[in-house]
Protein backbone atom coordinates (compact mmCIF):
# COMPACT_ATOMS: atom_id res chain seq x y z
CA UNK A 1 0.00 0.00 0.00
CA UNK A 2 1.26 3.43 -0.78
CA UNK A 3 2.68 5.26 2.19
CA UNK A 4 0.33 8.18 2.28
CA UNK A 5 1.80 11.38 3.55
CA UNK A 6 0.32 14.62 4.75
CA UNK A 7 -1.00 16.54 1.86
CA UNK A 8 1.02 17.92 -0.98
CA UNK A 9 -2.00 19.22 -2.83
CA UNK A 10 -1.97 23.01 -2.92
CA UNK A 11 -4.80 24.69 -1.10
CA UNK A 12 -7.60 25.84 -3.29
CA UNK A 13 -10.99 27.39 -2.92
CA UNK A 14 -13.61 24.82 -3.66
CA UNK A 15 -16.89 25.70 -5.24
CA UNK A 16 -19.93 23.61 -5.94
CA UNK A 17 -19.62 23.50 -9.74
CA UNK A 18 -16.10 22.12 -9.45
CA UNK A 19 -17.16 19.53 -6.87
CA UNK A 20 -20.14 18.60 -9.01
CA UNK A 21 -17.85 18.07 -11.98
CA UNK A 22 -15.57 15.81 -9.94
CA UNK A 23 -18.42 13.71 -8.67
CA UNK A 24 -20.09 13.46 -12.06
CA UNK A 25 -16.87 12.26 -13.66
CA UNK A 26 -16.15 9.73 -10.96
CA UNK A 27 -19.59 8.40 -10.19
CA UNK A 28 -21.00 8.50 -13.73
CA UNK A 29 -24.38 9.33 -12.34
CA UNK A 30 -26.77 12.22 -12.17
CA UNK A 31 -25.73 14.88 -9.65
CA UNK A 32 -28.62 17.03 -8.51
CA UNK A 33 -28.51 20.56 -7.17
CA UNK A 34 -30.14 21.26 -3.85
CA UNK A 35 -31.42 24.52 -2.44
CA UNK A 36 -33.46 27.33 -3.93
CA UNK A 37 -33.84 27.52 -7.68
CA UNK A 38 -31.15 29.77 -9.05
CA UNK A 39 -29.24 29.71 -5.78
CA UNK A 40 -28.14 26.14 -5.17
CA UNK A 41 -26.39 25.51 -1.90
CA UNK A 42 -25.50 21.88 -2.28
CA UNK A 43 -25.41 18.70 -4.31
CA UNK A 44 -27.20 15.41 -3.95
CA UNK A 45 -26.93 11.90 -5.34
CA UNK A 46 -29.75 9.42 -5.01
CA UNK A 47 -28.73 5.87 -4.15
CA UNK A 48 -31.12 2.94 -3.85
CA UNK A 49 -30.87 3.20 -0.08
CA UNK A 50 -30.50 6.89 0.65
CA UNK A 51 -30.07 10.42 -0.61
CA UNK A 52 -26.50 11.60 -0.06
CA UNK A 53 -25.91 15.33 0.07
CA UNK A 54 -22.91 17.65 0.01
CA UNK A 55 -22.53 21.28 0.94
CA UNK A 56 -19.66 23.65 1.63
CA UNK A 57 -19.55 25.29 5.03
CA UNK A 58 -17.58 28.41 5.90
CA UNK A 59 -18.82 28.90 9.46
CA UNK A 60 -15.67 27.60 11.17
CA UNK A 61 -12.09 28.87 10.80
CA UNK A 62 -11.44 25.90 8.54
CA UNK A 63 -13.68 25.64 5.46
CA UNK A 64 -15.37 22.27 5.41
CA UNK A 65 -17.13 20.08 2.93
CA UNK A 66 -20.05 18.49 4.76
CA UNK A 67 -21.44 15.15 3.63
CA UNK A 68 -24.86 14.40 5.03
CA UNK A 69 -27.70 12.00 4.63
CA UNK A 70 -31.06 11.73 6.28
CA UNK A 71 -31.44 7.99 6.25
CA UNK A 72 -34.75 7.28 7.87
CA UNK A 73 -37.63 8.93 9.70
CA UNK A 74 -40.57 8.31 11.98
CA UNK A 75 -38.95 5.72 14.23
CA UNK A 76 -41.64 3.74 15.99
CA UNK A 77 -39.37 2.50 18.77
CA UNK A 78 -38.75 5.97 20.03
CA UNK A 79 -37.20 4.95 23.31
CA UNK A 80 -34.56 2.98 21.47
CA UNK A 81 -33.49 5.83 19.25
CA UNK A 82 -31.04 7.71 21.48
CA UNK A 83 -29.32 4.59 22.87
CA UNK A 84 -28.95 3.21 19.35
CA UNK A 85 -27.59 6.49 18.05
CA UNK A 86 -25.09 6.59 20.89
CA UNK A 87 -24.09 3.04 20.10
CA UNK A 88 -23.65 3.86 16.41
CA UNK A 89 -21.57 6.91 17.25
CA UNK A 90 -19.29 4.87 19.43
CA UNK A 91 -18.69 2.47 16.55
CA UNK A 92 -17.99 4.93 13.78
CA UNK A 93 -14.67 6.71 13.64
CA UNK A 94 -15.73 9.77 11.72
CA UNK A 95 -18.91 11.78 11.53
CA UNK A 96 -21.94 11.56 13.76
CA UNK A 97 -25.46 10.20 13.83
CA UNK A 98 -28.13 12.36 15.40
CA UNK A 99 -31.87 12.80 15.62
CA UNK A 100 -33.56 15.74 13.94
CA UNK A 101 -37.05 16.96 14.71
CA UNK A 102 -40.12 17.85 12.71
CA UNK A 103 -40.29 15.26 11.38
CA UNK A 104 -38.22 12.98 13.58
CA UNK A 105 -35.47 11.60 11.38
CA UNK A 106 -32.08 10.03 11.77
CA UNK A 107 -29.24 11.84 10.07
CA UNK A 108 -25.60 11.03 9.50
CA UNK A 109 -23.09 13.82 8.81
CA UNK A 110 -19.36 13.97 8.29
CA UNK A 111 -17.08 16.85 7.39
CA UNK A 112 -13.88 17.09 5.38
CA UNK A 113 -11.36 19.92 5.44
CA UNK A 114 -11.85 21.66 2.12
CA UNK A 115 -8.52 23.36 1.35
CA UNK A 116 -6.69 20.28 0.09
CA UNK A 117 -9.50 18.24 -1.33
CA UNK A 118 -8.97 17.01 -4.84
CA UNK A 119 -11.09 14.77 -6.97
CA UNK A 120 -9.47 11.54 -5.87
CA UNK A 121 -9.76 12.31 -2.19
CA UNK A 122 -13.26 13.62 -2.43
CA UNK A 123 -14.46 10.52 -4.21
CA UNK A 124 -12.66 8.30 -1.69
CA UNK A 125 -14.34 10.05 1.22
CA UNK A 126 -17.68 10.15 -0.57
CA UNK A 127 -17.62 6.38 -1.06
CA UNK A 128 -16.47 5.81 2.48
CA UNK A 129 -19.31 7.95 3.81
CA UNK A 130 -21.75 6.09 1.58
CA UNK A 131 -20.64 2.72 2.95
CA UNK A 132 -20.88 3.88 6.55
CA UNK A 133 -24.29 5.40 5.95
CA UNK A 134 -25.64 2.20 4.44
CA UNK A 135 -24.19 -0.12 7.08
CA UNK A 136 -25.38 1.85 10.08
CA UNK A 137 -28.42 3.38 8.45
CA UNK A 138 -30.03 0.07 7.58
CA UNK A 139 -29.41 -1.26 11.07
CA UNK A 140 -30.82 1.88 12.67
CA UNK A 141 -33.83 1.81 10.37
CA UNK A 142 -34.61 -1.79 11.25
CA UNK A 143 -33.96 -1.56 14.95
CA UNK A 144 -35.97 1.61 15.42
CA UNK A 145 -38.66 0.41 13.01
CA UNK A 146 -38.35 3.59 11.01
CA UNK A 147 -39.23 4.37 7.42
CA UNK A 148 -36.45 5.11 4.96
CA UNK A 149 -36.28 8.75 4.04
CA UNK A 150 -36.46 7.91 0.34
CA UNK A 151 -39.75 6.18 0.97
CA UNK A 152 -41.01 9.19 2.86
CA UNK A 153 -40.02 11.44 -0.03
CA UNK A 154 -41.51 9.12 -2.60
CA UNK A 155 -44.81 8.24 -1.01
CA UNK A 156 -45.26 10.52 1.92
CA UNK A 157 -45.58 7.34 3.96
CA UNK A 158 -45.14 7.94 7.62
CA UNK A 159 -45.79 11.63 7.44
CA UNK A 160 -49.28 11.07 8.73
CA UNK A 161 -48.05 9.16 11.72
CA UNK A 162 -47.60 11.04 14.94
CA UNK A 163 -44.05 12.26 15.31
Amino acid sequence: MADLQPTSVPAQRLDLPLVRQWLAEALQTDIEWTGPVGHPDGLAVTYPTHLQQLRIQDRLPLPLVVLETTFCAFPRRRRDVLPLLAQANSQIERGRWFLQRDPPRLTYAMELPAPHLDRERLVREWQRFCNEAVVFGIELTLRTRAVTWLEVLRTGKGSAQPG
Partner: protein
Amino acid sequence: MATVIRTSTPDHDCACEAIDLSSPVSDACWRALRGWLQGLQLPFEPTLSEDAGLVGYSIALRNSLIGIGLTERPTGPVLTLTAVLCRGMDRETAALGAVDRANRQLALGQLLYVPGPPAELTLHAAVALDLLDGESFALLFEAMLGELNNVGFPAVMAVGGYHPTDYAAPWGDPMRAPIDDDPDDIVQDLQALAPRSGCGAAQGDRCSSQTDLGCGCSDTLHAGPAAVADPGQDPQAATASGPPDEAEGRAAHSRRRR
Protein backbone atom coordinates in the same frame (compact mmCIF):
# COMPACT_ATOMS: atom_id res chain seq x y z
CA MET B 1 15.24 0.62 21.43
CA ALA B 2 13.40 3.86 21.75
CA THR B 3 14.87 6.96 20.24
CA VAL B 4 14.26 10.24 21.94
CA ILE B 5 13.64 13.11 19.59
CA ARG B 6 13.85 16.66 20.79
CA THR B 7 10.82 18.48 19.63
CA SER B 8 11.38 21.69 21.49
CA THR B 9 12.36 24.71 19.50
CA PRO B 10 14.82 27.30 20.72
CA ASP B 11 12.09 29.88 21.15
CA HIS B 12 9.64 27.42 22.65
CA ASP B 13 11.10 26.14 25.87
CA CYS B 14 9.03 23.26 27.13
CA ALA B 15 9.46 19.63 27.89
CA CYS B 16 8.22 18.54 24.51
CA GLU B 17 10.13 15.36 24.00
CA ALA B 18 8.64 12.76 21.73
CA ILE B 19 9.76 9.18 21.90
CA ASP B 20 9.95 7.49 18.57
CA LEU B 21 8.52 4.03 19.12
CA SER B 22 7.09 1.45 16.83
CA SER B 23 3.83 2.55 15.29
CA PRO B 24 1.73 1.37 12.37
CA VAL B 25 1.89 4.89 11.03
CA SER B 26 5.01 5.92 9.15
CA ASP B 27 7.71 8.05 10.72
CA ALA B 28 7.16 10.72 8.11
CA CYS B 29 3.61 11.21 9.30
CA TRP B 30 4.67 11.44 12.94
CA ARG B 31 7.39 13.92 12.02
CA ALA B 32 4.86 16.03 10.19
CA LEU B 33 2.49 15.93 13.14
CA ARG B 34 5.25 16.95 15.54
CA GLY B 35 6.07 19.88 13.30
CA TRP B 36 2.44 20.97 13.25
CA LEU B 37 2.19 20.67 17.02
CA GLN B 38 5.27 22.83 17.42
CA GLY B 39 3.55 25.36 15.22
CA LEU B 40 0.72 25.61 17.74
CA GLN B 41 3.18 26.95 20.32
CA LEU B 42 1.56 24.79 23.00
CA PRO B 43 3.43 22.31 25.18
CA PHE B 44 2.70 18.73 24.23
CA GLU B 45 3.74 15.37 25.56
CA PRO B 46 3.88 11.92 23.98
CA THR B 47 1.28 9.34 24.86
CA LEU B 48 2.70 5.84 24.97
CA SER B 49 1.08 2.45 25.01
CA GLU B 50 2.82 -0.80 25.84
CA ASP B 51 0.94 -2.54 23.08
CA ALA B 52 0.83 0.02 20.33
CA GLY B 53 3.90 2.12 21.07
CA LEU B 54 3.51 5.78 20.32
CA VAL B 55 -0.20 6.47 19.98
CA GLY B 56 -0.11 10.22 19.98
CA TYR B 57 0.46 13.39 21.91
CA SER B 58 -1.50 15.28 24.48
CA ILE B 59 -1.96 18.98 25.03
CA ALA B 60 -3.11 20.09 28.47
CA LEU B 61 -5.26 23.17 28.23
CA ARG B 62 -6.87 25.00 31.09
CA ASN B 63 -10.19 23.27 30.64
CA SER B 64 -9.39 20.00 28.92
CA LEU B 65 -6.79 17.48 27.96
CA ILE B 66 -6.71 16.99 24.23
CA GLY B 67 -5.22 13.86 22.75
CA ILE B 68 -3.86 14.01 19.20
CA GLY B 69 -3.02 10.78 17.51
CA LEU B 70 -2.51 8.99 14.24
CA THR B 71 -4.08 5.69 13.37
CA GLU B 72 -3.58 3.57 10.31
CA ARG B 73 -6.64 2.75 8.25
CA PRO B 74 -7.06 0.93 4.93
CA THR B 75 -7.44 4.27 3.17
CA GLY B 76 -4.38 5.73 4.89
CA PRO B 77 -3.43 7.38 8.16
CA VAL B 78 -6.10 9.28 10.04
CA LEU B 79 -5.54 12.12 12.47
CA THR B 80 -7.69 11.92 15.58
CA LEU B 81 -8.42 14.65 18.11
CA THR B 82 -10.03 13.58 21.36
CA ALA B 83 -10.97 15.78 24.29
CA VAL B 84 -12.38 14.26 27.46
CA LEU B 85 -14.77 16.90 28.75
CA CYS B 86 -15.97 15.27 31.94
CA ARG B 87 -15.64 12.10 33.95
CA GLY B 88 -18.60 11.40 36.16
CA MET B 89 -21.83 13.35 36.04
CA ASP B 90 -24.64 14.26 38.39
CA ARG B 91 -27.40 13.76 35.84
CA GLU B 92 -26.37 10.80 33.77
CA THR B 93 -29.97 10.17 32.77
CA ALA B 94 -29.77 13.42 30.79
CA ALA B 95 -26.64 12.32 28.99
CA LEU B 96 -28.16 10.76 25.88
CA GLY B 97 -30.37 13.77 25.25
CA ALA B 98 -27.56 16.23 25.81
CA VAL B 99 -25.23 14.28 23.55
CA ASP B 100 -27.79 14.06 20.78
CA ARG B 101 -28.51 17.78 21.02
CA ALA B 102 -24.78 18.49 20.84
CA ASN B 103 -24.30 16.25 17.84
CA ARG B 104 -27.11 18.06 16.10
CA GLN B 105 -25.34 21.37 16.68
CA LEU B 106 -21.78 20.30 16.01
CA ALA B 107 -20.08 21.31 12.82
CA LEU B 108 -17.05 19.15 13.45
CA GLY B 109 -16.53 15.74 14.99
CA GLN B 110 -18.89 14.04 17.40
CA LEU B 111 -19.72 14.10 21.07
CA LEU B 112 -19.54 10.64 22.56
CA TYR B 113 -21.20 9.34 25.69
CA VAL B 114 -19.13 6.61 27.29
CA PRO B 115 -21.07 4.81 30.02
CA GLY B 116 -19.23 4.56 33.28
CA PRO B 117 -18.41 4.40 35.90
CA PRO B 118 -17.27 7.02 35.57
CA ALA B 119 -19.41 8.06 32.64
CA GLU B 120 -17.62 10.35 30.22
CA LEU B 121 -18.41 12.90 27.57
CA THR B 122 -15.76 13.01 24.89
CA LEU B 123 -15.47 15.25 21.87
CA HIS B 124 -13.87 13.32 19.06
CA ALA B 125 -12.86 14.34 15.56
CA ALA B 126 -10.99 12.39 12.92
CA VAL B 127 -9.67 13.56 9.58
CA ALA B 128 -7.72 11.78 6.86
CA LEU B 129 -4.16 12.94 7.26
CA ASP B 130 -3.67 13.63 3.59
CA LEU B 131 -6.30 16.36 3.79
CA LEU B 132 -4.17 18.42 6.15
CA ASP B 133 -1.06 20.51 6.22
CA GLY B 134 0.38 22.65 8.98
CA GLU B 135 -1.89 25.60 8.32
CA SER B 136 -5.09 23.60 8.02
CA PHE B 137 -4.15 21.53 11.08
CA ALA B 138 -3.90 24.72 13.12
CA LEU B 139 -7.29 25.84 11.80
CA LEU B 140 -8.74 22.44 12.57
CA PHE B 141 -7.42 22.62 16.11
CA GLU B 142 -8.87 26.11 16.52
CA ALA B 143 -12.21 24.92 15.17
CA MET B 144 -12.14 21.99 17.57
CA LEU B 145 -11.61 24.32 20.51
CA GLY B 146 -14.49 26.47 19.33
CA GLU B 147 -16.83 23.49 19.10
CA LEU B 148 -15.62 22.33 22.48
CA ASN B 149 -16.57 25.64 24.05
CA ASN B 150 -19.75 26.33 22.13
CA VAL B 151 -21.28 22.88 21.98
CA GLY B 152 -19.33 20.51 24.21
CA PHE B 153 -19.40 22.38 27.48
CA PRO B 154 -23.10 23.24 27.42
CA ALA B 155 -23.61 19.48 27.22
CA VAL B 156 -21.31 19.05 30.22
CA MET B 157 -23.32 21.63 32.13
CA ALA B 158 -26.54 19.89 31.17
CA VAL B 159 -25.37 16.60 32.68
CA GLY B 160 -23.63 18.17 35.67
CA GLY B 161 -20.29 16.78 34.53
CA TYR B 162 -17.20 16.57 36.67
CA HIS B 163 -13.75 17.76 35.77
CA PRO B 164 -11.96 14.94 33.93
CA THR B 165 -8.98 14.93 36.26
CA ASP B 166 -10.80 15.54 39.52
CA TYR B 167 -14.03 13.67 40.13
CA ALA B 168 -14.83 15.86 43.12
CA ALA B 169 -14.82 19.12 41.20
CA PRO B 170 -17.92 19.96 39.21
CA TRP B 171 -17.33 21.92 36.06
CA GLY B 172 -19.32 24.75 37.57
CA ASP B 173 -16.34 25.73 39.68
CA PRO B 174 -15.52 29.21 38.37
CA MET B 175 -11.90 28.88 39.41
CA ARG B 176 -11.49 25.83 37.28
CA ALA B 177 -13.79 26.12 34.36
CA PRO B 178 -13.12 28.85 31.83
CA ILE B 179 -16.01 27.53 29.87
CA ASP B 180 -18.14 29.31 27.42
CA ASP B 181 -20.83 30.65 29.67
CA ASP B 182 -23.13 31.84 26.97
CA PRO B 183 -26.27 32.67 28.93
CA ASP B 184 -28.49 31.64 26.06
CA ASP B 185 -26.98 28.16 25.98
CA ILE B 186 -27.30 27.73 29.70
CA VAL B 187 -30.86 28.97 29.74
CA GLN B 188 -31.70 26.43 27.06
CA ASP B 189 -30.03 23.71 29.07
CA LEU B 190 -31.80 24.71 32.22
CA GLN B 191 -35.10 24.91 30.44
CA ALA B 192 -34.53 21.41 29.15
CA LEU B 193 -33.73 20.15 32.61
CA ALA B 194 -36.29 22.01 34.66
CA PRO B 195 -39.14 19.85 35.89
CA ARG B 196 -42.62 20.92 34.92
CA SER B 197 -43.66 21.57 38.47
CA GLY B 198 -42.08 21.41 41.87
CA CYS B 199 -38.39 20.93 42.36
CA GLY B 200 -37.86 19.78 45.89
CA ALA B 201 -36.08 22.92 46.92
CA ALA B 202 -35.55 23.44 50.60
CA GLN B 203 -38.66 24.29 52.50
CA GLY B 204 -39.03 27.99 53.05
CA ASP B 205 -37.13 28.97 49.95
CA ARG B 206 -38.96 31.28 47.62
CA CYS B 207 -38.83 31.52 43.90
CA SER B 208 -36.49 34.30 42.91
CA SER B 209 -38.07 35.12 39.61
CA GLN B 210 -41.59 35.04 38.27
CA THR B 211 -40.53 34.04 34.81
CA ASP B 212 -41.72 31.21 32.71
CA LEU B 213 -39.19 29.06 34.49
CA GLY B 214 -40.25 30.13 37.93
CA CYS B 215 -42.18 27.64 39.97
CA GLY B 216 -42.45 29.21 43.37
CA CYS B 217 -39.19 28.09 44.84
CA SER B 218 -35.58 29.20 44.68
CA ASP B 219 -34.09 26.07 43.20
CA THR B 220 -31.43 27.33 40.84
CA LEU B 221 -32.89 25.46 37.95
CA HIS B 222 -36.08 27.40 38.38
CA ALA B 223 -34.60 30.79 38.93
CA GLY B 224 -35.33 31.91 35.40
CA PRO B 225 -33.16 33.70 32.88
CA ALA B 226 -32.32 36.34 35.45
CA ALA B 227 -30.36 33.67 37.23
CA VAL B 228 -28.02 33.39 34.32
CA ALA B 229 -26.50 36.80 34.52
CA ASP B 230 -22.93 37.84 34.02
CA PRO B 231 -21.00 34.96 35.62
CA GLY B 232 -18.07 37.15 36.39
CA GLN B 233 -20.06 39.50 38.56
CA ASP B 234 -19.70 39.28 42.30
CA PRO B 235 -23.00 38.00 43.67
CA GLN B 236 -22.84 40.26 46.67
CA ALA B 237 -22.17 43.26 44.50
CA ALA B 238 -25.09 42.24 42.37
CA THR B 239 -27.25 41.97 45.43
CA ALA B 240 -26.26 45.44 46.41
CA SER B 241 -26.70 47.05 43.03
CA GLY B 242 -29.23 45.18 40.96
CA PRO B 243 -32.97 44.89 41.23
CA PRO B 244 -34.01 42.36 43.86
CA ASP B 245 -35.10 39.63 41.48
CA GLU B 246 -32.10 39.95 39.25
CA ALA B 247 -29.63 40.13 42.11
CA GLU B 248 -31.07 37.07 43.78
CA GLY B 249 -30.97 35.29 40.48
CA ARG B 250 -27.32 36.08 40.13
CA ALA B 251 -26.61 34.79 43.56
CA ALA B 252 -28.49 31.61 42.76
CA HIS B 253 -26.46 31.21 39.60
CA SER B 254 -23.29 31.70 41.56
CA ARG B 255 -24.37 29.04 44.05
CA ARG B 256 -25.01 26.64 41.24
CA ARG B 257 -21.57 27.28 39.78
CA ARG B 258 -19.94 26.61 43.10
